[in-house]
């Protein structure tokens, strides 16, 4: 068989009987053919060298190539010609817009990336006009704290941070207390009032003193206050009484309107934890008590706090779990009442640190101010906020605080024959008039006016008005009616003469 090229060469030497028809068989090769045989072999090598003949399946240990490599088939199953074209377009055609592909590749999109692990960035800048969302979770889901952490606490409905080795609310939650810094005192302007069992007395707006005791207890807005405050409310026992009955009580309190505490969800399984904080100073060190109650005072949570040093301002916090039972008003009536007990009989004592179905003002054995002549107790910087952390007192402007107080009480001091209202004749003996007020009252208020009140008719006739009462509060007016004799038809102007008009819608 003719061996026309190297691919036809046989691995068995005996089978190679010719090369390009030059006979190589035994006794067939003439000396004259030897050179021809070598020449044919060299020609075959030359064909292999220039690619005229394709080697079938050569094996190469290592190979150095100084020129180009052209592959007509595949390399390791890949069509190099086709795939090579793809490689040529990788940079131009790379798909970095498909989130699924990018995420599958373990990379992150510039837009819409979702990181499942922690991210470390030495500095970060958030641009845009929308918002950055922080991790949110319950208090139980807090991570191990590291200073500088920020998160949203869904239990407390507020942002919190880890600083100085502890979690704390950021910037302070909204306080439920009005006039917590005791700066507003519309009724007394700093004068002392004496507590009574016949009516609550207000020494600073929204804070009432009630004293059902034979002791004499006074309350007064004073200028002695801790750093950062200007005023405090001071309760003093000017005549002590021991041996009052079991129903005696001296209490200092603020009732919080139901509208302002409805988000606490008291009376339900999702009732929120709240924290009371205040600055207190007393003449006697010891264990003092107080409580939280509902407006109907048939649910109470007594608490204790300790005054460590006499006559020294101290900061106290009390955190309680929200009440999951009971009826808690969420309207314009009293929602929750914060009490400080200053001497209560056993009728108003209850087990501390739990919700009781009774009107408890303090735990038993709490310090009784009314039993100690000249004993004093002062308080300011009062806050009640959602959550388990007491945050820094946030001072409102005087105007804001006054307006909040005026929802419950307004005092109008008048000069000589100063107009306070305008109205019309209702009947011969009654007039109806509207008193302008800066804010809307919580409810239809009661009115008392000291000094003479008159109505002046359009013809100049002046008639005394007696028995004045509000009948409606609407927007920034209180509609009132009064008794007057012989009023003629027409409009009237109501004036008060050097007196004080008190309009009361307290809880």
């Amino acid at each position, binding site marked *: 068989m003719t061996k026309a090229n190297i691919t036809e060469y046989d691995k068995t030497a005996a089978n190679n009987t010719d090369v390009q028809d030059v006979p190589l068989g035994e006794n067939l090769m003439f000396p004259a053919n030897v050179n021809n045989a070598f020449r044919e072999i060299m020609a075959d090598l030359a064909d292999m060298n220039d690619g005229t003949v394709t080697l079938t399946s050569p094996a190469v240990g290592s190979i150095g190539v100084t020129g180009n490599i052209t592959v007509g088939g595949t390399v390791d199953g890949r069509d190099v010609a086709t795939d090579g074209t793809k490689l040529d377009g990788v940079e131009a055609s790379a798909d970095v817009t498909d989130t699924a592909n990018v995420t599958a590749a373990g990379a992150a999109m510039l837009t819409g990336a979702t990181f499942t692990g922690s991210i470390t960035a030495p500095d970060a800048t958030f641009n845009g006009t929308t918002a950055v969302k922080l991790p949110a979770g319950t208090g139980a889901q807090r991570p191990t704290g590291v200073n500088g952490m920020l998160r949203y606490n869904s239990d407390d409905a507020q942002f919190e941070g880890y600083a100085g080795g502890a979690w704390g609310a950021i910037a302070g939650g909204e306080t439920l207390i009005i006039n917590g810094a005791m700066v507003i005192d519309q009724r007394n302007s700093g004068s002392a009032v004496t507590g*009574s*069992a*016949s*009516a*609550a007395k207000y020494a600073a707006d929204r804070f*009432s003193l*009630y004293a*059902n005791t034979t002791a004499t207890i006074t309350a007064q807005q004073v200028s002695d206050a801790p750093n950062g405050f200007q005023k405090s409310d001071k309760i003093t026992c000017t005549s002590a009484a021991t041996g009052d009955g079991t129903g005696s009580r001296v209490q200092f*309190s603020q*009732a919080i309107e139901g509208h302002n505490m409805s988000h606490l969800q008291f009376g339900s399984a999702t009732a929120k934890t709240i924290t009371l904080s205040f600055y207190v100073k007393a003449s006697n060190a010891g264990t003092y008590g107080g409580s939280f109650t509902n*407006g109907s*005072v048939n649910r109470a949570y007594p608490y204790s706090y300790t005054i460590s040093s006499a006559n020294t301002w101290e900061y106290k916090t009390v955190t309680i779990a929200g009440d999951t039972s009971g009826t808690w008003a969420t309207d*314009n*009536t*009293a929602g929750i*009442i914060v009490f400080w007990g200053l001497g209560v009989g056993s009728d108003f004592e209850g087990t501390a640190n739990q919700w009781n179905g009774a009107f408890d003002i303090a735990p038993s054995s709490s310090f009784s101010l009314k039993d100690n002549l000249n004993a004093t107790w002062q308080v300011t910087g009062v806050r009640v906020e959602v959550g388990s952390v007491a945050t820094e007192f946030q001072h409102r402007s005087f105007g804001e605080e006054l307006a909040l107080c005026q929802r419950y009480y307004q005092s109008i001091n008048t000069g000589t024959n100063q107009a306070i209202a305008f109205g019309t004749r*209702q*009947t011969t003996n*009654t007039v*109806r008039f509207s008193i302008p007020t800066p804010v809307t009252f*919580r*409810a*239809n*208020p*009661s*009115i*008392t006016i000291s000094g003479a009140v008159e109505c002046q008719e359009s013809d100049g006739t002046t008639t005394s008005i007696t*028995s*004045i*009462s*509000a*009948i*409606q509060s609407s927007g920034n007016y209180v509609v*009132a*009616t*009064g*008794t007057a004799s012989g009023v003629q038809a027409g409009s009237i102007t109501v004036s008060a003469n050097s007196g004080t008009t008190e309009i*009361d*819608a*307290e*809880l």
Partner: protein
Amino acid sequence: MMNEMNITSAKYLEDDTGNIAIIATIDGSEWGVPMSEGNRHYAEIMRQVEAGTLTIQEAE
């Protein structure tokens, strides 16, 4: 009842529509009290009336 009040007198105030308010002496001061459930003075007046310790006089 959170706090009691010392109410020594109470009298209706009327106009041409009937009784519209109560004039009451509370802790020594005369107050005009609207007949409104949300008013603490009215609530206490009605509590004492129900307890039989207070009577509201008719208007003159």
